[in-house]
């Protein structure tokens, strides 16, 4: 198998790697980069568990090849919280709303919400809920996730409390 050299920024750190042409971004992140928060529920682009952001946009890392991430800035769930452990608002919102049970789908949901609410992005509750059509959660019945979406859209996420202890 041919190897290709890639350089990318992963969770704010520069990384170089040699990857096979067929290696998905998800497999590279999990197996090479140790980002095991990237979860694989289907490897078919259906469940959304593998979602990361690439240059700020939510992407299913099982459908993107690692070579395509050459030169990109990739953020995984491991890169969401502040260095001191303070939760990102999407993490805080999901925690307060009990938006997770087993936590397997959760990293993908967090990354989609982060892409739609971070920086200049100000998605409405409807937009966040409609983005959830790209995620499957078998545990929660989605109501907690809906409440998290509302809190994010309305800006009512508790300020800083409950940081990663």
């Amino acid at each position: 198998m041919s190897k290709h050299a890639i350089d990318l920024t992963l969770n704010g750190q520069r990384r170089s790697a040699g990857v096979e042409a067929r290696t998905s971004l998800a497999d590279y992140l999990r197996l090479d980069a140790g980002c095991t928060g990237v979860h694989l529920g289907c490897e078919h682009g259906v469940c959304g568990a593998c979602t990361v952001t690439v240059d700020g946009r939510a992407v299913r890392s099982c459908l993107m090849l690692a070579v395509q991430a050459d030169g990109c800035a990739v953020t995984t769930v491991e890169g969401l919280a502040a260095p001191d452990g303070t939760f990102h608002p999407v993490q805080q919102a999901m925690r307060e709303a009990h938006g997770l049970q087993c936590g397997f789908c959760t990293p993908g949901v967090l990354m989609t919400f982060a892409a739609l609410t971070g920086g200049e992005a100000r998605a409405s509750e409807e937009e966040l809920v409609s983005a959830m059509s790209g995620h499957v959660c078998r545990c929660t019945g989605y109501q907690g996730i809906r409440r998290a979406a509302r809190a994010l859209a309305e800006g009512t996420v508790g300020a800083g409390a409950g940081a990663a202890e």
Partner: protein
Amino acid sequence: MNAPNSSLGATRWIGQRVPRKEDPRLLTGRGQFVDDIVLPGMLHVAFARSPIARGRIVSIDTAAAREMPGVHGVLTMADLAARPITMLSFFFTEAEIPITPLADGHVSYAGEPVVLVAAETRAQAEDAASLVEIAYEELDPVVTIAQARTAGPIHPGMDSNVAAEIGDEEIEDELEDTLAGSALRLSHRIVHQRISQSPMETRGVLASRDGPEELQLWITCQSPHLVARWVSLALGLPDSAIRVVAKDVGGAFGLKNHPWKEECAVIVAALLMGKPLKWIEDRYEALTASNQAREAEMTLQAGFDAEGRLTGSHGIYDCNNGAFPQGADSNIAVHMFVWAAYKQPAYAFVSRG
């Protein structure tokens, strides 16, 4: 009035929103699911599976698979037989038919694992598994409850396709008289579709033989203790020989009570090869070959008196448990639930699975 002492007893929790202690790790990508565990020298498993629902295995050719880069082992049931394992039901009982980790001579469902390939990466294992050549003599599949009633037994040497039966289809005279004498007698047939549990985290196991009587398992499951007990009985090892770790589990829904064919094949292969082996089911495998639940048909009769009070009932319950039921006798439990909320003077039934 004294304020309740909120630091003591149940008052601390009742009515409170309690933050879960596992949330911080799950929200920051620090959960530990089976596929997140890596051991030195670990190999990855992929299976060559049956594409047909029923047939005899004519030949298995593993030569090309063995030649592939990174491949350390290509094992059939003949190889696994070197370390016997007795696969048990959910109730720790032995099945009447032999249940083997890999197919032994014949296949009985689409997706049944036939050959185990262990390689340095999952991709290499899949490449090699795709080169295993298995020739089958295809037989008519037995898929539905109706087919199971009339078809010959799918397991050689058995006299029917019923793995467990309790009760009587014939209604006894006394109950028949009660029903016949009731002001109203109803009969209704209920068909319940099959359930595919489909947890977000598929099945998976990492098995490591750490000594002659020391086996460590990381397995996505519903109860590590139940798994440890089941595996110790299945392998004939003392409880203390087996350590089971299941820190985070991505849903189970009844599917992950105890190991089944694939997990057992990985455990036995790890014992034989002396290398840690990891198998993580992919979604295609999960939807094809994971056990499913509760495809059932029930015909229920009930009698009522003129005031609408129940006088008696009879139930015929048939459940499609597939070729290798994990608990054939579990069908009996249905009858405990049917009339649980009602005063039922007389009830008789038959349960078959």
